[in-house]
């Protein structure tokens, strides 16, 4: 029996080999244009069939909106201004629209629910340290992330998705294509860059649309220069406090918005420069040609878009942020409440980091905050505030050591920051450092999952932080050279 199946197998193998040999010899006889002639007959058949079944209804030709719009949106002269306007409008709607719901959420979660939880913990007799760790540390950081992140994301993602459904994104890619090509990168990187404005981790996953591994790596490494959702609040707050206050109040809003847009554009410029640099050094190669079909414009389905962008993107990103904020909240509370000698651990670290911070035009508090806030950029500002209060031992603001809080009044911020030794240089460098530093841990993990390479994950992590430190250092030195102080 065994012999029998064995011999059948051998026989089959023989026929298979015969098939392949025949194919091989026939291939030589037929010559090399087989592929082309096959394609040709496919095209011929397709044309024949299509001619038979499609008829153009003879009606008055309607006004062709698609063509007119394309001419406007992708023209050399109008394409870029419209793109800038669109992006500014999206950000402006996001920034101004998110203020009110953010404040409402903050007052609900922080002013109303937080005291209730504290009381409840007291009533059930939770030990004081556990009470502090769980409610002042973990709960508050979670509450902060929700109230700061949810409203802007719930506005930004649907707006972005509407533009996407309408068919605008391929036009952006079309406009930016020549720049990316000059930088040695793929034109579709424009799409992944745009996704990065929502969330870098999402942008990294989106790089799957790029086929060539070389160009995909460039897109992954530079995605961090797209200012993500979690970094917008930092930019907006610092710009309003320090830059907007340089000009008369009436112009303050406009100037600070301009500063934020400038930082975002700097990010775009850095994307091109870094891509160019990478494609001439460690990721050498020519840009591969690709054909990007400009799809027809389609009226977006608004309700469906709202639903999917809320569920798929907003809730997903928020949930991830909460997961990372929880341990960070605990770390912040612990660093402020565990003592070595007469100082908390946090104060020791800040004192240690202080000289480096000064060299970079920042300070120890900011550096420590960026270390704690690796899991999520959203918690940078609250961490900075909490740490500043802790080091100054100010008792009039805040709610106690290691308690994350939000200040309602810009003046309180300014007083607090000037007491902490902040200058205009600190503010400018903080905005720059927020743009140019390592990706958050979620993004780093996503990069690893996508590239499966420790080397590229490390490069994506350390390249931006090195760049950020260098840029901040030089700006601080130049600033002090010209203005003497800072």
């Amino acid at each position: 029996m065994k012999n029998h199946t064995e011999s059948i197998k051998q026989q089959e193998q023989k026929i298979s080999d015969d098939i392949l040999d025949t194919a091989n010899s026939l291939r030589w006889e037929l010559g090399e244009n087989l592929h082309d002639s096959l394609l040709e007959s496919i095209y011929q058949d397709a044309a024949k069939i299509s001619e038979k079944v499609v008829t153009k209804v003879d009606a008055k030709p309607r006004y062709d909106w698609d063509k007119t719009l394309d001419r406007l949106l992708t023209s050399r002269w109008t394409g870029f201004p419209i793109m800038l306007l669109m992006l500014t409008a999206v950000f402006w709607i996001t920034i101004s629209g998110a203020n009110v719901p953010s404040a409402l959420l903050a007052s609900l979660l922080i002013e109303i629910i937080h005291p209730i939880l504290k009381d409840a913990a007291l009533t059930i007799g939770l030990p004081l340290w556990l009470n502090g760790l769980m409610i002042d540390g973990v709960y508050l950081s979670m509450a902060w992330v929700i109230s700061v992140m949810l409203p802007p994301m719930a506005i930004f993602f649907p707006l972005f998705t509407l533009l996407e459904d309408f068919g605008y994104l391929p036009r952006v890619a079309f406009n930016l294509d020549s720049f990316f090509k000059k930088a040695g990168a793929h034109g579709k990187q424009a799409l992944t860059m745009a996704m990065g404005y929502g969330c870098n981790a999402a942008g990294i996953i989106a790089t799957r649309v790029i086929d060539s591994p070389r160009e995909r790596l460039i897109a992954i490494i530079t995605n961090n220069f797209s200012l993500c959702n979690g970094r917008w609040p930092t930019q907006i707050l610092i710009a309003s406090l320090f830059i907007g206050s340089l000009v008369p109040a009436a112009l303050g809003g406009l100037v600070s918005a301009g500063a934020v847009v400038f930082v975002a554009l700097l990010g775009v410029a850095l994307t091109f420069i870094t891509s160019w640099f990478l494609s001439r050094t460690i990721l050498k190669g020519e840009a591969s040609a690709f054909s990007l079909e400009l799809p027809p414009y389609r009226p977006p389905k608004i309700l469906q878009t709202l639903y999917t962008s809320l569920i798929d993107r907003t809730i997903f990103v928020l949930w991830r942020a909460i997961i990372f904020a929880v341990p960070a909240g605990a770390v912040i509370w612990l660093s402020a409440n565990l003592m070595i000698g007469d100082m908390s651990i946090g104060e020791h670290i800040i004192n240690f980091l202080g000289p480096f911070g000064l060299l970079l035009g920042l300070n120890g508090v900011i550096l420590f905050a960026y270390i704690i806030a690796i899991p999520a950029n959203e918690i940078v500002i609250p961490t900075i505030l909490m740490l500043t209060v802790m080091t100054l031992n100010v008792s009039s603001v805040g709610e106690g050591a290691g308690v994350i809080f939000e200040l309602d009044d810009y003046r309180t911020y300014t007083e607090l920051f000037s007491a902490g030794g902040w200058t205009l240089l600190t503010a400018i460098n903080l905005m720059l450092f927020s743009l140019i530093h390592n990706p958050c841990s979620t993004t780093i993990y996503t990069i690893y999952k996508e590239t499966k390479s420790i080397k590229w994950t490390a490069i994506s992590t350390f390249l931006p932080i090195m760049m950020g430190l260098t840029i901040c250092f030089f700006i601080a030195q130049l600033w002090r050279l010209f203005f003497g102080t800072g």
Partner: protein
Amino acid sequence: MANKLSNCETCPVHQSAYLKKLGVNTDNWDYVLALAGNPNTGKSTVFNALTGLRQHTGNWPGKTVTRAEGGFLYQEKRYKLVDLPGTYSLLSTSTDEEVARNFILFGKPDVTVIVMDATRIERNLNLTLQILEITDRIVVCLNLIDEAHRHQLSIDERKLSKELGVPVIPTSARRSEGIQELLKAIHEVANGLYICKPHRIASGSKPLRRAVSHLVEKIENRFKGISNARWIALRLLEGDPRIIEAVKDGELDKLEQNLKSIEAV
């Protein structure tokens, strides 16, 4: 029976009795469907309309980067639906095209649903004709039919169906139009109620035709009951490494057997 039902086909009670969207639950399927088509023809929208999932759709080519799977229950049969990446062709060597082609060839879908853009019939036919060569269980979903009408195009879907030898169902998946008819066609092809007679591409020159028929004979002798011998022959003549390998290790043989055992069940 069909006439009786047609009056209430738009009634949601009727629809829910026949289609149950199963989302990501694809266990114990009776049939596997592959969803193929050019980029940006609304494949993901069709996918969502059938499975009730909300896979992200976007108006740019190449949106679907991973293979998505979902399920639905129709007329008491469980279907597993696999959304393949959109491609313009199956002949070149990009990853997308290989994923799509290998799934249609080796993934043994019971029915391949080709989503075509009704506003770009000719270009979409290039891919459709290639898929027709590989498998003979096909339903064409002529999507974006509303847009075609908007562009003053009139499409004779019955003639198209006759030309291609497979069912052609006009749909507008965005508005959930034509989905019931699509399901019915899938059901018929899956259960052998509709036997497709796929269009074959004209084989070009005489020497080519001779070479193909010579090979087809050998292939049919080796892989009994194979339905796409002609396509395999053409691929071998072009020297497609994946197909050569499949002939060498007898993978094609197993395919046919598997298909048969599924039919037997």
